[in-house]
């Protein structure tokens, strides 16, 4: 009996450890981009603008610039921020999940790694959403579907240009502001 309980507990602990280790990787996903950082950013921005569903650009951050301003070096990182009031509105109107505003606006990160290649990182909205009930789950699954479209890199389309936020901040955290939410 003790053995059965023992192995049962052991199994649960093992699964738990395994799950804990994999959780980080599951909550976010990373894709290789065929383009450089700037072109990837520009293409994502234009994809967002063409996506409909109320999506608009709400900022472009450059945290590497802040590191450089403080005398250090960091490989390029640019964060494209986008928002759709169609999706954010219902969540912001529900007291029980208003705290999820910390995930807003929706961010897609574009960065270079030490292999010299450019990667796209984003949150796995489809997996995270259902953890917060059916309302959020439903909205997040739609966000996830749109997000998948944002990161489509179609080389047959001509190179678009980065849309820099109108009120760009100085050398620091980069410009926020802009339209949208």
């Amino acid at each position, binding site marked *: 009996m003790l053995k059965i309980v023992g192995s049962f507990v052991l199994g649960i602990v093992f699964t738990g450890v395994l799950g804990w280790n994999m959780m980080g990787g599951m909550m976010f996903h990373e894709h290789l981009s065929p*383009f*450089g950082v*700037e*072109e990837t*950013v*520009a*293409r994502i921005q234009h994809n967002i603008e063409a996506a409909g569903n109320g999506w608009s650009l709400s900022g472009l951050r450059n945290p*590497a610039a802040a*590191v*450089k*301003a*403080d*005398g*250090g*070096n960091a*490989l*390029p990182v640019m964060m494209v921020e986008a928002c759709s009031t169609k999706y954010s509105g219902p969540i912001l109107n529900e007291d029980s999940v208003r705290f999820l505003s910390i995930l807003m606006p929706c961010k897609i990160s574009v960065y*270079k790694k*030490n*292999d*010299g290649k450019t990667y796209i990182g984003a949150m796995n909205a489809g997996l995270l959403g259902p953890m917060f009930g059916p309302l959020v789950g439903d909205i997040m699954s739609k966000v996830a579907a749109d997000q998948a479209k944002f990161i489509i890199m179609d080389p047959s389309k001509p*190179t*678009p*240009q*980065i849309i*820099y936020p109108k009120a760009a901040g100085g050398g620091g955290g980069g410009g926020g502001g802009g339209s949208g939410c």
Partner: protein
Amino acid sequence: MRITHILLAALAGLSLAAGASEPPAAAPAAPAAAAAPAAPAKMLSSTADHSKFKELQQSFKSGPEVTKACLSCHTEAAKQIHKTKHWTWEWVNPENNQKLGKKNVINNFCTATASNEKFCSSCHVGYGMENAKTFDYTSETNVDCLVCHDTTGAYKKLPGLAGHPTYKDIEFPPGSGKIAKAVDLPKIAQAVGKTSRDTCGACHFFGGGGDAVKHGDLDSSLKKPAKYLDVHMDAKGLNFSCATCHATQGHNIPGSRYTPTGKAEDAAHMRGKENKGNPASCQSCHGSAPHKAKERLNSHTDKIACQTCHVPQFARAQPTKMTWDWSTAGKLTPDGKRMKIPDASGHHDKYDSIKGNFTYESDVVPEYAWLNGKVKYTLLGDPVNTQGVTKINEYGGSPTDGQSRIWPLKVFRGKQPYDLETKSLLVPHTAVGYGEKDDSGFWANYKWDAALKAGAAAAGQPFSGKFDFVSTEMSWPITHMVAPKADALTCTQCHAKNGRLASIKGVYMPRRDANGMLDIIGWLLAAATLAGVLIHGGLRTYLGRKG
């Protein structure tokens, strides 16, 4: 009140200048003295104030007139310059007798100087080089002192004027409606001084046809760099000038890419002790065991150049050009005009009718190779590799020759014209002298045939009339823009399966390399042993209980 202020400032300036005037190594302190607030007169670290020399109080009409005045005191200066690459544009590599120098080499940026001298010689330390073959290399007055010794920043040699600055107001670039003012030669001549990041950079920051184009580790951001970009040149810190490392004697500047030092000697140079080594190496100051806190790193210095870890990326302040495809040049707008297409950043072109397609990249992760300092160029007349990539320059080096270290490189890739019959690279005649009408220049009429014919004629090479474009590659060892030590590469950026040195052969690197067979056998045996003892133990318990 105000008088006391001025007096105090002057005193402060004096004491600073006095401190700075003795050893040459204190040169970085001089700009600090110059920057002392509201000093009434500029305090010099030099013992000579050139503005007081009668020889320089003339209304100079041309550059050579200024040089004549300089030479009346500095009698040997021109003779020294005459021996340098900066003047001759020619240098014979003693290793393999290849004739290098700007006059002879061909690159995959703007390609070569032949037929384009009026334009290119804006970066010649001389006046009037319209043709590198016929230029009078013995002329002393045609040496340009000001281009290196100007301290005002007002001296400018515009391309197209064959190495002269402009002596009258002209429209520049032609047809732009902008006016380039005549340079004030007396004022510039009276303010001459030491070379600076600005004077060296006037050419070296703009190589390849624009700011940051060529080197990747040299661009205008080094005029006043922040600490993150260059710990040594940090304008608010050590504030090195180029010559702090490229310590020069008799105008012969050490540290050339034609003779790079693959493996600098181990000990730091000592003052007063004669040393034939390259002063423009990290080791000449730091030695080869510079890591105090993490001593294990010193065991890397035998095989790895300092730059490999300490210049983690190049082009960290602004993007550098990484590729250049000449084969697409010449496309025009429907109404026959030159066109430019911007890239995604909006700050650079990805296409320009006069040059073709480019790509720019910032924070570039270098490529790495063993370098021993030997270099072989593909010169005019040398066969190109029509099947693959032609290496414009090829650095020697191997893990076993004892003279190599692993270096970071900027590898610049492009496509450029070659002769289908002679299989040699071709020199296009691109630029035209200021105000000249010249139909063969590619940048004037976009016709390859005429441009290549004129270029070949000027270079003295045959041209069959048939040409195509060949892929080329040029390597630039990265050595400038040393980052603060906290930003050096960490262990696992190389000690990893797909790390930065993944392609480097000839060294065993823990965590990158392992004998796969041994690992499989080892772990299988360990698993078998574990399984064996578990079975043994199981049997023991089972049979023991039964028994």
